[in-house]
């Protein structure tokens, strides 16, 4: 009786998760079909297989240059937001700051404002300062919307965090710096890394802010794709999407190899 109900529960668990994964991956399968389908529009069912959209994507300089730029920007944003967001989370959770709750909400605000306004507002300020869209401006714009993720994920980890561990280390004679590096930092690492992945992806996929902050000939991939799509909505867009997925996934997997993402799950 009990064995049967366990099995049924298990089955339900896996069926449910299978359905969720199907939900997540179906649109990507559609994009893959679009990328391989010879018709210049999304059609269902597909009528054949072609590599021409991938060929077109790789043969177009604009795509290649912007892809490379997007990757570099995303890596810088990843590093910056992990440091800034992680530090900020520690301050908010451990600093006993007056008004920490309001500050926490405040740091979420770039996510709540439609990014087109943030982009326009930044563009306007840069123009008034006579700065014509420098790359660091783009990085700042992306970091602004990436920090809240690191902040959130790190705060979530800190909430379950037993401060007595730190206190114990301190009472055993460890210096505050040593406590920080040997106790605090390893404990918040999972949150910071999860946030860093968000930051990378958010920057790589960022569109409305970039729209205003990229200079001519210095456009990121989403901007180039959007401009392309306004006129030629063909499979090259889907091919670009598939390439982005593979590239970014390999970056994430690389992170997993280097820092060990699995580690954070099983701390």
């Amino acid at each position, binding site marked *: 009786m009990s064995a049967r109900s366990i099995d049924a529960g298990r089955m339900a668990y896996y069926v449910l998760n299978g359905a969720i994964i199907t939900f997540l991956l179906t649109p990507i399968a559609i994009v893959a079909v679009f990328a391989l389908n010879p018709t*210049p*529009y999304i*059609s269902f069912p597909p009528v054949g297989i072609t590599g021409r959209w991938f060929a077109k994507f790789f043969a177009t300089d604009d795509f290649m240059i912007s892809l490379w730029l997007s990757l570099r920007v995303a890596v810088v944003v990843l590093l910056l937001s992990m440091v800034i967001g992680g530090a900020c989370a520690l301050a908010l959770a451990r600093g006993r700051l007056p008004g920490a709750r309001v500050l926490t909400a405040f740091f979420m605000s770039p996510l709540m404002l439609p990014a087109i306004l943030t982009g326009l507002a930044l563009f306007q300020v840069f123009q008034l300062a006579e700065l014509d869209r420098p790359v660091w401006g783009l990085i700042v714009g992306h970091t602004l919307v990436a920090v809240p993720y690191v902040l959130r994920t790190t705060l979530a980890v800190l909430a379950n965090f037993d401060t007595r561990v730190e206190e114990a280390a301190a009472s055993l004679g460890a210096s505050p710096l040593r406590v920080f590096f040997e106790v605090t930092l390893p404990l918040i690492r999972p949150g910071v890394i999860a946030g860093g992945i968000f930051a990378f992806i958010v920057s790589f996929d960022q569109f409305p802010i970039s729209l205003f902050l990229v200079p*001519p000939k210095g456009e990121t991939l989403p*901007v180039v794709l959007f*401009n*392309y799509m*306004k*006129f030629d*909505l063909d499979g090259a867009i889907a091919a670009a999407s598939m390439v982005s997925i593979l590239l970014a996934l390999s970056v994430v997997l690389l992170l997993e190899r280097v820092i060990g993402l699995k580690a954070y799950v099983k701390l």
Partner: protein
Amino acid sequence: MTANRLTRRAALSAGAAAALATVGAPAILHAQTATLKITTWGGKWGEIMKGELLPAFEKEFKCTVSADQAFPFVPKLQASPKSNPVYDVLHTNSNEQWNSLDLGVVEAKLDHKKIPNIADVYPYAISDKIVGVSIFTSAIGLGYRTDKGLKKPTSWKDLADPALAGMRGGYIIPVNSLGQCHLMMLGKIYGKGFTDLDAAYKALEALKPIKLVDFTGQMEKMLLAGEVSMGIIHDSGVLRYEGQNQPVDFAIPSEGVMALEQVLNVTPGSKVKELAYAYIDYMLRPDVQKRLSETVWYSPSNKKVKLDPKYDAKLFNTEAKVAQLIQPDWKWYNARKEEIDTRVTRLLKG
């Protein structure tokens, strides 16, 4: 006489500087070439511009061109200081040029003396419905599927055919000028004229259910994929699939087609105005016009352009054909845009 000596010295050095400048002029010019900041489209248009036409222009005029393809252009121009605008030449559709004029970010009138090729354009390109000069136009009419047993539409009224319920396509009027053109056209065919908004609203409501998109590329795809059977579109959006065996065609309604003009204008604060004018003149050259026309199926403004037969047959490039183009009164429309947007949004919602 210190003052005298000083002035003499000043004069001497000024003379020397002038002499040096003359000798070294080419070098100096080369060292600090002027930059022309423009906006331009992406897609095939952008490929030809960036691949051929702009490099040729840079070479001829010894300058660099910085071409922005990232929309939206007008808000960027609007947010940049008037004395140091982010663009020297604004290329956009006619309605946005009128908006820009209201915002004071483009010139009210171009100096035609600085654009020799303007002498060869069709009158519509510099009519009182245009701020700046129109370098190309496409024609807004009806695109339809040829495989759905539909008759080729002959009138704008054909879009209201009850058989097309849910299978007709239009645009989100607040953000798309084709949708705005269509609204004015509805006033004309169902009411007293292009400005008869009440008739237009009523006619628009009668088109429900209708699928609305925000840009023409999306309408192309909806037509190609069969998600809509008939939709408002510009000729270039259908003609570009010629020879690809797609079951779509473009129809010119008897009431006329609306013009979707590609307009260039100069910004008042531009620091390289001569270059800006030279660019406009360059874009009106017959060879430049022919190249772009045959790339994206836009009708050239310059009368002297001789298109290949395939394009010649379809594009609006004779006095007679050009007469079919109706130019919307954007000044009138823009003045009412907010009110129309609110009304239309409410009307189509739910």
